[in-house]
């Protein structure tokens, strides 16, 4: 209980950074960014050069980066530290431990393994070990279940796979979803509307393990157009990308449709029509920008989710991506993997939410003024 109270207090403290003067959070952001770079750079360049480089970097960043970004960084770094703490606490609360097997292992074997991997018995001790490793060695620590590799050894090769596949899926989801949704929204209750919303309904109701398995049978086994599974050529990419994209495409289509419906009633759309613009031009030049606002809000978390891969799609198609580690880490109680993926995911979420906020401001002048 004490731990929970401490976590809440820390979270409120981090949130209250928002009430510092703007200049202070800017400086804090620049300093924290420089500090993070320093932690990793000192292993490459040595202490003194790294310090100099980072001081210069900090100053440069402070002058050059937009305040919105710097402010976001000033929240992000303390949040990540708190996240490590909270996640560690949760992991230790969960039953089991990374070394538990079906066959009971002898106590001295467990003790030996704990010593070797730096996994003490209490969350506080582990937090200390982990932070020390992270800040002093700049390492995410050894993976506990998969032997002989560090967390970064496992995550870094998987990163381009997930980013590539996720990027493609994101593009497909947005392209399909916006096209269907806007079309349906401009002609409500037409057959196009019903057809695309019916499609969206299917996309929303089917779990992706069913979609994936279905695609596999149709496209790979019946039609023989694409290989069943694996990762070795562009032929392997399309089915997983589609599987990953479809549920999101469906959600986006529905959000885009309702956004379009609303926008088309606005005065300035009437004005645009009155000016004699063609319907297509009205939609693409005027309506689209505002109609996709809810879609853009949704894209932040969705993008992070898609890009970090989906466990289901990866296990189904045998893809060496990152999604597997999110689940395997938790299932195996591999503390290092869990923390590594959580840090990564939280960083990604922050990044995409920042991107979404910037995009919202760019798309809608009203938000710009508000912020």
């Amino acid at each position, binding site marked *: 209980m004490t731990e929970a109270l401490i976590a809440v207090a820390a979270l409120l403290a981090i949130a209250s950074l928002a009430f510092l003067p703007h200049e202070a959070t800017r400086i804090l952001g620049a300093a924290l960014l420089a500090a993070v770079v320093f932690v990793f750079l000192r292993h490459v360049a040595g202490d003194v050069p790294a310090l100099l480089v980072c001081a210069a970097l900090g100053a440069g960043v402070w002058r050059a980066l937009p305040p919105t970004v710097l402010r976001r960084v000033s929240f992000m770094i303390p949040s990540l530290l708190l996240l490590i703490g909270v996640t560690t606490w949760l992991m230790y609360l*969960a*039953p*089991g*431990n990374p070394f*538990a*097997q079906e*066959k*009971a*292992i*002898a*106590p*001295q*074997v467990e*003790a*030996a*393994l704990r*010593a*070797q991997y730096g996994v003490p018995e209490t969350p506080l001790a582990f937090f200390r070990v982990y932070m020390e490793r992270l800040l002093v060695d700049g390492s995410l620590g050894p993976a506990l279940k*998969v*032997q*002989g*590799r560090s967390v970064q050894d496992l995550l870094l*090769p*998987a990163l*381009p*796979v997930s*980013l*590539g*596949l996720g*990027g*493609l899926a*994101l*593009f*497909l989801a*947005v392209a399909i979803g916006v096209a269907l949704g806007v079309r349906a929204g401009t002609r409500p209750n037409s057959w196009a509307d019903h057809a695309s919303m019916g499609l969206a309904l299917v996309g929303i109701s089917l779990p992706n393990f069913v979609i994936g*398995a279905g695609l*596999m*049978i149709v496209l*790979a*086994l019946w039609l023989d157009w694409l*290989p*069943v*599974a*694996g*990762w*070795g*050529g*562009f032929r392997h*990419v399309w089915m997983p990308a589609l599987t990953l994209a479809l549920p999101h495409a469906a959600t986006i289509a529905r959000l885009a449709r309702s956004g379009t419906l609303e926008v088309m009633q606005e005065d300035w759309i009437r004005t645009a029509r009155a000016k004699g613009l063609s319907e297509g031009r009205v939609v*693409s030049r005027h309506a689209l920008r505002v109609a996709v606002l809810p879609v853009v809000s949704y894209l932040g978390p969705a993008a992070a989710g898609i890009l970090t891969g989906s466990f289901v799609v*990866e*296990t*189904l*198609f*045998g*893809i*060496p*991506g990152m999604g*597997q580690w999110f689940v395997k880490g938790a*299932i195996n109680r591999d503390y290092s993997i869990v923390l590594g993926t959580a840090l990564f995911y939280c960083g990604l979420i922050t990044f995409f939410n920042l991107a979404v906020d910037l995009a919202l401001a760019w798309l809608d002048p009203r938000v710009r003024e508000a912020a």
Partner: protein
Amino acid sequence: MRSGLGLLVLPLLALLGIGLTFRASFHDPADFTFVNGTEPNTLDPGLMTGEPEGRIASALFEGLTIRDPATLRPAPGVAERWEISADGRRYVFHLRRDARWTDGLPVTAHDFAYAWRRLQLPEHGGEYAYIMHGVRGAEALNRDEARAIALRGPVRAAVEGLVQGAIDPQVWEELVAEQDLVTTVRGTRDPVLRAGLEAPPVDRAAFLNALAGEAERRSARASEARLHYGIDLGVHARDDYTLVVELVAAIPYFLELTAFYPAYPVPRKLLEAPGNERDWFLPEKIVSNGPFELAAWRIGDRIRLRRSDSYWNRESIPSRTIDALPLENVTTALNLYLSGEVDWIPRYPSDLVDALRERSDHYAHAGFITYYYRINTRRPPLDDARVRRALALAIDREMIVSEVLRLGELPALHLVPPGIPGYEPPPTAVGFDPERARTLLAEAGFPGGEGFPEIGILYNTLESHKKIAELIADQLARHLGIVIKPYNQEWQSYLATMRAGDYDLGRAGWIGDYLDPNTFLDLWVTNGGNNQTGWSHPVYDRLIAAARNVDDYVQQPFVDGLAEPGRLRVLLAAAAEAPDVTARREALAALRLHLLREAERILVEEELPILPIYFYVVNGLVRPEVEGFYTELVQSDGQRLPNLQNLHPLRSIHLPGSR
């Protein structure tokens, strides 16, 4: 539109990123590709556990002996011949001179001594160390220091905490929950300790004294083993090509153990270099001595094995390259097989049994695995043996195997799977008999299930476990009128819950490690790490200990509480009157199996802390044209045996035409 252009950049970048992750080395398909089921956590033979890892290990490394792929009998590996002493306790292995590591160094007896010593070092953390505890000094090195610490610490504290001047064994066992401590003390020769456990009460001060003495002895044995084991104790290299092994007692299956991965050699030179201990087996570092070498290993994608040029017998290895896919999804595995991309899948979705079993490429044979339920004997009313027996009598195992599993699995009325040469399971009377079950339940105070509390069946999440649990719950409800609720937990929670004893009935399975009943029976000794039922039976414990060292038993035989004392006396007499050493060894082996049989009888007939359900059938799909894949083992005497241990050495498997 500007944003339109921006949107197009995204897929292009994505495709570029994807392109960078393809590996040129995987473009050619391998000669043989199979689905390995899961990603190996390690390729260090001294640390690994589990079938998928074992498959890769036996391709990368070679032990003193190997299992002949066609018969699974031990055959010469790195050792070209060996001598066994008359009492079966001393092995001298003569190593072949042409065995080489992939770095060109010869494989020597020192490599084996080093690997075997490393396996037993407590700080190494090898889980399979206990497999080799039959070697003299191994157990002392591996366990005794920890035991001494426990005897000085928690055990002493527990005894001191007792207020009475005497020790009641019941209290004692409840206090000392630490794994194998009670067996440690039971196995002692110290008369005071033995008396304290077997014939209480004893004097408390004397008992504490004896504990301290035992701790001292354990400590001394541990440090002696640390100084000598692998150097001049238990196992040692007489010269570069001669390895001498001394056993505590004869082990009939020892040459099978030397073909098992914990006994594989490790590259000593590589491991002695600093910084390699934990990652020497990664592709960029590994040095191995088996028929294959590790060409590439990409997590989540595949392991590629390539025939090793330095292997002494490379001409006999038909496949040049083998790919092992770590795919866990059985449906995808099946689809890959059907589309022709893989040649062997050791599992497929169990729902498809009916559709696949008639195919020519389908195989199914008996396995060395038992599926059973643990009963938490600490929880009333399950602490009553009559209740446990009633549960056993109300389960219709025949229906489970014939209607749910449908691959010819055998209903299990005892624990040890059939097929161990020379071992006869006890005849059991606890088959399906709902009438008797109801009678027993009524005797225990629950006529018609009246007043019986609702109990749960805990299983780890898996479709087939779920089906069986739901079926059994329905059967028990129907035949006994009691309420049973199956519920699942994910793996780690399930393990923790089982270990904490927080369940009523719990699913479990056990894969035999070696072809001997002991691998199933020594689980159930008091407080054994895998017992987890709270069940404890002094006669059972004594029987297991006696089977571990039959010579001791012959010195101090006991027959109390046994079902067939007459047979035992005959066997004892046969051992005593054996004309020569070989005959005596055989008589002792028979005696040993009989002791285990008596133990199993207590387990599955009298006490039932577990409910055996069925014996596994191992099944899968393999291309019919694949050669060197044996589901049936034709022995030299023409006898046909099932591939019980489900070993399919990759050294013999190949697709003709790929050569």
